[in-house]
């Protein structure tokens, strides 16, 4: 749903808020009628409108919160820099929420044991082997492996490299894990 047109979301939300305003104002006026004019026959309608208001609020908040959960998932999937295509579908406030979230997460990760902390957004899968076969998807250039040796990551070249060194590049789309 984050991919849904941002404008649609904003329009939809605005309509809900306008409807709420209208319902509330009708209720205000009816409540006055009840108080001053003794029109207690209006009470069921007032209650009904109030239920509508609560429902509208519940739906609006649920929708917005669901979007937040998807945006949160983006941090774990794409990293801290989101592709422009995704950012386009987020409102300014959502972007702000995202920035606060990733900052909060970064602070937490830095606090984990030792000086550098632990990046728990890595190592998402149990390690099966020490080395993996990877194919290079884009030209990357020199890449240093252990012992000071380096490999040239050219597009379409294949390498047998330590898994932990490659993980970052695989997630960035530079390398592709070849499963034979």
């Amino acid at each position, binding site marked *: 749903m984050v991919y849904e047109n941002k404008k649609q979301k904003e329009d939809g*939300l605005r309509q809900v*808020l306008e409807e*709420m*305003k209208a319902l*509330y104002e009708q209720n205000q006026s009816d409540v006055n009628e009840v108080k001053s004019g003794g029109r207690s026959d209006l009470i069921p309608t007032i209650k009904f409108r109030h239920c509508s*208001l*609560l429902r509208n*609020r*519940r739906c*609006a*908040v649920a929708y*917005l*919160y669901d979007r*937040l959960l998807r945006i*949160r998932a983006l941090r774990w999937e794409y990293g801290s820099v989101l592709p422009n295509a995704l950012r386009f579908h987020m*409102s300014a*406030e*959502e972007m*702000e*929420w995202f920035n*606060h*979230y990733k900052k*909060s*997460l970064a*602070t*937490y990760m830095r*606090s*984990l*044991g*030792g000086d550098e902390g*632990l*990046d*728990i957004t*890595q*190592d*998402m*899968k*149990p*390690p099966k082997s*020490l080395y993996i076969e990877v194919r290079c998807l884009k030209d990357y250039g020199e890449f240093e492996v252990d*012992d000071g040796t380096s490999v040239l990551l050219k597009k379409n070249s294949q390498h047998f490299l*330590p*898994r*932990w060194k490659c993980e970052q590049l695989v997630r960035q789309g530079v390398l592709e894990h070849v499963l034979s």
Partner: protein
Amino acid sequence: MTEALDLTGRDSDAGSEEVVLTPAELIERLEQEENLRRAKKGDLKVSIHRMEMERIRYVLSSYLRCRLMKIEKFFPHILAKEKTLHEGELSSLSPEELVFAKQYMANTETYLKNVALKHMPPNLQTVDLLRSVPKPDLDSYVFLRVKERQENILVEPETDEQRDYVIDLEEGSQHLIRYKTIAPLVASGAVQLI
């Protein structure tokens, strides 16, 4: 993934009271492995240590991720519980996790307020998150292994037709039981969730 926050085991259910050293211990081992690696370059042991390191790193990351996910999922309830800790009760969260949880709540509340709530009628501008966000289902069933023999555990009925009954838990036996029934046993370490 199970419901509440636990410090002793990975996929377990309790709002356990103890702050366990496991993450710290694992990190220490990770660092030890790192040192060993530097010391024995070129040896076959390096590979083995490296594998071990990766495994430790994975287990640790997975465990911490699970905790964060639970914190995010149940944040109003967890924070409410933290507020009402009695004297001598230990927190289920590390200090850093508590900070994270508070920030998550503040961030979300601010967002909802600015985007929707402040544009709503005056009497509807506050949402009680404790009521809107689902709370952990402590009645869900969990698997456990008994470490210390327990006698006379009271099992409350689920339906009106049933009645309370009492069971004994033999050491080493495994059970499938409602979490709420055995919650204190998880906290004390008498049983282990599997």
